């Protein structure tokens, strides 16, 4: 019996191994093709576009005009800085709001878990644009939120710290950051939920058993074990938020323009393709640089 089994696997092994060799590649193929066509190719086009000179009517010639990158940075650095600051604040706020919620869903919601998760995802059933437009209503001057904020002197406070310019909430840095936070919150909650869901509640009991107060338990056990979720969540929030232009356009003013808006208008309104391409490339490089520093400093390789 055993001998027969050994013999049969022995003779069957070479063909199956040969097949197994190309199967993973075959499975990778659609993904690779997709990336080639929709990522690598546009990237190459974009890079070459940024180094061309000319205009839409007369066509473009490749001139290896690298100085455009310096000019773009020189001209638009405030928008770059603003984008990263807004995205950073929105990411921080989303983390503050999302972490307790994700913790609750993962550890305490019990049989309501799925319901709460659906509620988190529910906003996706409407379009991004509609949801952001809704914030124009929510923050409008004649809506109770603004009135309340005025009565509670929140508007005064926001004005004092420079997040708004006047007594209203709309068309301000405040509104843009709120919009970004709101729109990308689910991207923060879901990865946090996944990593907090895996957290063994017995570890929390063990920490308590070993004299850790609830706060120490959080700092020494819960937080480090949820770091993969924190890193994933902050990346998924920060990256799209930094390139976003809808929130700045719909909720901000001329002083809150983000780099996404600049790229959008250079591409679609000014039709300065090389500059738009250069700006896109700078944004890409800056984000990749920041993310790699961040991931390395978070030291999550072994946790992921």
């Amino acid at each position, binding site marked *: 019996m055993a001998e027969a089994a050994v013999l049969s696997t022995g003779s069957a092994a070479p063909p199956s191994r040969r097949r197994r060799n190309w199967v993973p590649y075959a499975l990778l193929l659609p993904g690779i093709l997709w990336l080639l066509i929709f990522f690598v190719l546009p990237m190459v086009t974009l890079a070459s576009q940024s180094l061309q000179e000319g205009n839409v009517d007369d066509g473009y010639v490749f001139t290896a005009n690298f100085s455009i990158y310096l000019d773009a940075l020189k001209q638009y650095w405030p928008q770059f800085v603003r984008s990263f600051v807004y995205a950073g604040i929105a990411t921080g706020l989303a983390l503050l709001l999302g972490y307790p919620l994700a913790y609750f869903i993962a550890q305490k919601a019990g049989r309501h878990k799925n319901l709460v998760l659906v509620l988190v995802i529910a906003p996706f059933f409407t379009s991004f644009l509609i949801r952001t437009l809704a914030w124009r209503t929510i923050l409008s001057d004649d809506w109770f939120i603004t009135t309340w904020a005025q009565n509670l002197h929140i508007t005064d406070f926001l004005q004092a710290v420079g997040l708004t310019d006047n007594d209203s909430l709309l068309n301000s840095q405040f509104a843009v950051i709120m919009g970004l936070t709101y729109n990308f919150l689910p991207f923060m909650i879901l990865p946090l939920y996944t990593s907090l869901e895996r957290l*063994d509640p*017995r*570890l929390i*009991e*063990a*920490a*308590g*058993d*070993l*004299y*850790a*107060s*609830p706060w*120490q*338990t959080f700092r*020494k*056990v819960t937080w*480090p*074990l949820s770091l993969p979720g924190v890193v994933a969540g902050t990346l998924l929030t920060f990256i799209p938020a930094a390139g976003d232009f809808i929130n700045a356009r719909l909720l901000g003013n001329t002083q809150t323009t983000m780099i996404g808006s600049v790229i959008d208008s250079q591409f679609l309104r000014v039709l300065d393709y090389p500059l738009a391409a250069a700006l896109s490339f700078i944004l890409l490089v800056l984000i990749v640089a920041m993310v790699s520093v961040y991931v390395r400093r978070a030291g999550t390789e072994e*946790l992921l």
Partner: protein
Amino acid sequence: MSEQSKGDLSLVALTKSFATFTAVHPLDLTIPQGSFFALLGPSGCGKTTTLRMIAGLEEPTGGRIRIGDSDITETKAYQRNVNTVFQSYALFPHMSVLDNVMFGLRRRGDKDAKAKANEVLELVQLGQVANKKPTQLSGGMQQRVALARALVNRPDVLLLDEPLGALDLKLRRQMQIELKRIQQEVGLTFIHVTHDQEEAMTMADSIAVMNAGRMEQLGDPATLYEQPRSTFVANFLGQSNLLRARVNPGGTDEMVTVRAHDVDLEVSREHLPDGVGDVWLGVRPEKLRLGESGGPNHLRGIVRDVSFSGVATQYSVEMPWGQELIVIQQNDGSNRATLGEAVTVSWAAQHGFALDASQDAEAGAELVDDHG
């Protein structure tokens, strides 16, 4: 806090009820300082709930918990000088073995945390893996890390929740001896929760047998085994042959006779509960002898099953009334019986014990084999 007064652990009418059932009925128990104590019972008997209440992980519905003079009922888990070795070990996966062991000491701001942790790791023979992550260790090693992590804090009471449950048999035997050695070396109070009667008897100084949220019997392993006070204890700790019998009037101060299936049998008076007429007469399989050499109590039957296991042979002897008695004969050179042979089974009066016949003769028996 580390200078808390130490002393015996006492549970006073400790109770835990959930919405639909009572996990622990009022429980009174004193566990002497420095003893190795076992809470033994089948799953769902309330032993783990009791342990979690002592640890502070479960809030009692009623009653008090004291260590020496201090009442710790109201304190939180992290304020108690009590540590637990969890069934699943619950080691922190993101910390090294050393950091795991230092966790409790660090929370208390102990300056010598590292030295103490290393010392305890040596005690459990894990000094060489201090810098590894728990997931890189085998189950047995993880178990010892969990023990070290609790032990290093020198708690007033160390709780062990089925600590050997996940280990294979051989490793479990080894760890039982190890645990006992460590307990004697450090002299702390150990409370060991287990469903494994053999484990409890091997390790503990005294055992509380629990069933359905109540304590059935408390005593040292030998007393529990030789003189069980209920059919549950008789069946859950080892095997018992239980014969339905009626106490004959009279008898002497030492001896009473009971009549079982028209045979008069002797039993020591001290093994007979007061004031009962109908009893289960119990005798352990290894106390029975084939032949008449065992003592004055004789029963005749036919061998229906023989199984030889090296150290001993187990016989099943059918009585005229149909009941089968289990007889275990040591492999000491005495004659072996063969299948179908008519034999006499005998035993001494002091080896029998009588239990109130109002109990179920099967109580606890079906629970012995089903542990995972």
